[in-house]
């Protein structure tokens, strides 16, 4: 809520300045915004649908069951894959990770889950492809997944 108020107050200030400085340019800004919104609308809808379906099916309870308290690399890989396909708000994800850690999951597994969760976005990929292109999206997410695994490995060794 605070973020929304912040964004809108910033927007209002910018908008007022813009209109005072040049009505013509402000009009063009609105046009650019409208066009971009229409162009991304289908991919926004897609993201919305995928988020709904994955979060409906992969609830925090299901995830803790799947990752479980098992140690071993299989649990880590599972956690990494789950992190990559889900899009969980951090307010839910970190408490979940904390409780998994207490119930016996390893640091490596938890960091794999958290890092892929934040670095890889399969759910948001349709929108990323629409705005930044297929190759960019594919490279960013697959390299992110690899990096997440390496990060998890390092964290498991150090902590």
């Amino acid at each position, binding site marked *: 809520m605070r973020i929304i108020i912040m964004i809108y107050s910033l927007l209002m200030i910018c908008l007022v300045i813009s209109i005072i400085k040049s009505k013509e340019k402000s009009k*063009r800004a609105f046009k650019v915004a409208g066009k*971009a919104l229409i162009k991304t609308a289908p991919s926004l809808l897609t993201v919305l649908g995928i988020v709904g379906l994955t979060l409906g099916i992969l609830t925090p309870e299901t995830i803790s069951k799947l990752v479980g308290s098992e140690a071993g690399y299989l649990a880590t890989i599972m956690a990494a894959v789950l992190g990559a396909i889900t899009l969980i708000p951090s307010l839910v994800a*970190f408490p979940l990770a904390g409780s998994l850690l207490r119930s016996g999951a390893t640091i490596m597994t938890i960091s794999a889950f958290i890092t892929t969760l934040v670095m890889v976005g399969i759910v948001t990929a349709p929108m990323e492809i629409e705005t930044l292109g297929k190759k960019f999206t594919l490279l960013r997410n697959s390299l992110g997944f690899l990096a997440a695994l390496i990060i998890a490995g390092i964290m498991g060794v150090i902590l």
Partner: protein
Amino acid sequence: MTSVKKFKMPMIIGFVFLFLLFYDPSTAIKSSGVMWDYFKEMAIIMPAVFLMMGLMEVWVSKDKIQMWLGSGSGIRGIAISLFLGTLPTGPLYVAFPMTASLLKKGASITNMVVFLGSWAALKIPQLMVEIKFLGLPFAALRFILTFFFLIIIGLLMDFLLEENYIKEKINE
């Protein structure tokens, strides 16, 4: 015809959802609840984001973006990208259209990968929650490692994507 093609994915998801409604109604209801929550969030944030983008497109000159975030901006460019990314600004899908217009204005791919990555992985409010539930050592180590790897991924992608990728893919 093109508009039908554009809505192909939303339609497929609609069918999956209908299937789920018959096969497992309780999950379908839960899913629709989640969709509704995210829809509200998007509906509130997106208009503001696109307007900000429009204003940026009209007012901020190419030279300035190139100077701050272009391929010659070096460590300062990376620092600016990290700073912009960690600001508390909302979900990742908001960042994609912004990144696209920054790229169009001449920001480098390396910087934009760092920007997107820190937006997703290193947000300040998110770090607070992380410290609370997983402890400071975990959060600090993850921050450092993630930042380091983001720069590597950025440099790698800058190398792998052809020079005219942005012109072809984004400017169309």
